[in-house]
């Protein structure tokens, strides 16, 4: 096996978003004839587990590394080690505050969540109470999406009030219960933003179980979210391009191995989609099941 060995250390593994990233990476691996491994901790709080994974990956002497840092600073010494050993590092998902990665394949989560806020405002008619069900209080994506949404509402929509921001760990069931509590505590609520797939599905479940008719904006895709949009339970959702992120990361790594120079940022983009746009080829390409 003389194929180049590329180790991807992601922020997660089991969630559909990360599985989509993995699918993109696997696609690129087949295309460019390289070996790719993909690993990530169980939850986005486990910074040290991720560091251990990175250390083990380095021990394997890979030809290149793709890394989605849970906390950039924590990883700096190991990334330095990679640099010293001339192992190219490609950052993906959120960036790494360091000049070691040759490039970053990423989405701007803050801007994406701000777009969700705009859509929410539009759908509820510019005034009323809204809430956020997010996955994580401390992880980069959690903070960025909540901040992106809440700050945009504060800045641009003075008549809209964010009455609750609660965190369900991305667990579908817990997010369902949280949504129900929020709905019951705020009968006049107009809309909820579910900040990742598990949260968004939870919001949909809660809405359905209580027979509510609030506006729901989701994040990411997956079969259930797509179905919810088709059925009208969810008004629309933001999607990143996880397959693209995985693909671009591996592609960049291969390019780096060939000695090509890379652009500092590969923006994989984000999109808002709803029932009417879901079938557009441009959108359909970035949605995953």
């Amino acid at each position, binding site marked *: 096996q003389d194929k180049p060995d590329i180790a991807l250390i992601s922020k997660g593994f089991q969630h559909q978003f990360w599985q989509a990233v993995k699918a993109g990476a696997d696609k690129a691996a087949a295309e460019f004839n390289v070996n790719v491994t993909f690993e990530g901790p169980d939850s986005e709080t486990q910074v040290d587990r991720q560091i251990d994974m990175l250390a083990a990956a380095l021990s394997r002497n890979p030809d290149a590394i793709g890394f989605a840092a849970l906390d950039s600073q924590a990883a700096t010494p190991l990334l330095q080690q990679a640099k010293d050993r001339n192992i190219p590092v490609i950052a993906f998902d959120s960036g790494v505050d360091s000049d070691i990665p040759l490039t970053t394949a990423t989405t701007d989560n803050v801007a994406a969540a701000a777009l969700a806020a705009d859509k929410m405002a539009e759908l509820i008619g510019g005034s009323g109470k809204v809430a956020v069900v997010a996955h994580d*209080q401390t992880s980069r994506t959690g903070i960025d999406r909540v901040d992106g949404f809440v700050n945009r509402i504060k800045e641009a929509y003075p008549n809209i009030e964010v009455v609750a921001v609660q965190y369900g760990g991305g667990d579908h069931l817990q997010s369902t219960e949280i949504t129900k509590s929020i709905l019951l*505590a705020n009968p006049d609520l107009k809309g909820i933003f579910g900040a990742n797939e598990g949260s968004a599905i939870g919001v949909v479940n809660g809405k359905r179980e209580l027979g509510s008719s609030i506006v729901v904006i989701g994040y990411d895709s997956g079969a259930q979210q797509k179905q919810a949009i088709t059925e009208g339970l969810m008004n629309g959702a933001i999607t990143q391009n996880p397959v693209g992120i995985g693909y671009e990361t591996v592609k960049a790594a291969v390019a780096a191995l060939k000695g090509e120079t890379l652009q500092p940022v590969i923006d994989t983009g984000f999109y808002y989609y709803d029932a009417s746009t879901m079938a557009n080829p441009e959108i359909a390409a970035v949605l995953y099941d």
Partner: protein
Amino acid sequence: MTDTLATPAKPQGIRITGAFHRLLAFSGLIALVVVFSLASPNFMQTNNVLAILQATSVNGVLAIAATLVIITGGIDLSVGTLMTFCAVICGVVLTYLGMPLPLGILAAIAAGTASGLISGTIVAKLKVPPFIATLGMMLILKGLSLVISGTRPIYFNDTPGFTQIAQGSIIGSVFPALPIPNGVLILFLVAIIAAFILGRTVLGRYTFALGSNEEAVRLSGVNTDRWKIAVYALAGGICGVAGLLIASRLNSAQPALGQGYELDAIAAVVIGGTSLSGGRGTILGTLIGALIISVLANGLRILSVAQEWQTVVTGTIIILAVYADILRRRRL
């Protein structure tokens, strides 16, 4: 021998004390409900009460499974991932293989029972401590759920009635004023069956006996291994029911879910007064424990307490609730 020994069995006295005792056991729960009702008008709404009950169903069923194992003096860390595994198996049978609903239900429960059989065998025959045996099973089942499902959720869209298992309301269709979801009904059903098995059957007797003094049971000529395995298998089957409930609520088998659920389940058991050293415990207590956990979570959310403070308050109240229970028992 000597009649000084005559400690007359006071059935009345004992029964009254027992009933009083039982009533008081609810005190922690009642106190919570009263506080939250006063704090928020939304808390005691029918819808919210139903939401609390519905939120208790999965954890309640898991906690009942954990109770059985804990009474034998063991522990079951695999309840959460086993639930998921059963949901995935059900998904495979219904969605991938396209079998009819009853077969899916059967498959989930059978998968749970089989896994329980394995855990029980590892504990009873190989003498591996239950903590390790079920920790190992927890990891194995977690991995297998991902492998079998291909790390993606399995949806039950082809099985229309599936969401009705937990979300429908048979009671509500007869008495529209009481739209109690089937999930809650199933929880109570499982509780009644478990309580019946514990209290009235040989299996239940040995469950307590094993936790009380396994060596004595063995010395009495009982095949302790067989009964212990049976308890784990029963607990596994109950986890299968939990798997059906969560799959029905989410209308999907989410293969990544489940780890961490064991802690909530065990917490419900211990809050409910079952001793981790085995030999004593009640299903009623476990139900109350599970309700305390859900009421707390719901109440704090209804009051819009900041999430980080929710955690602090929950921790404090769990300790206080158990302490109050201890004081009550000491006084009796």
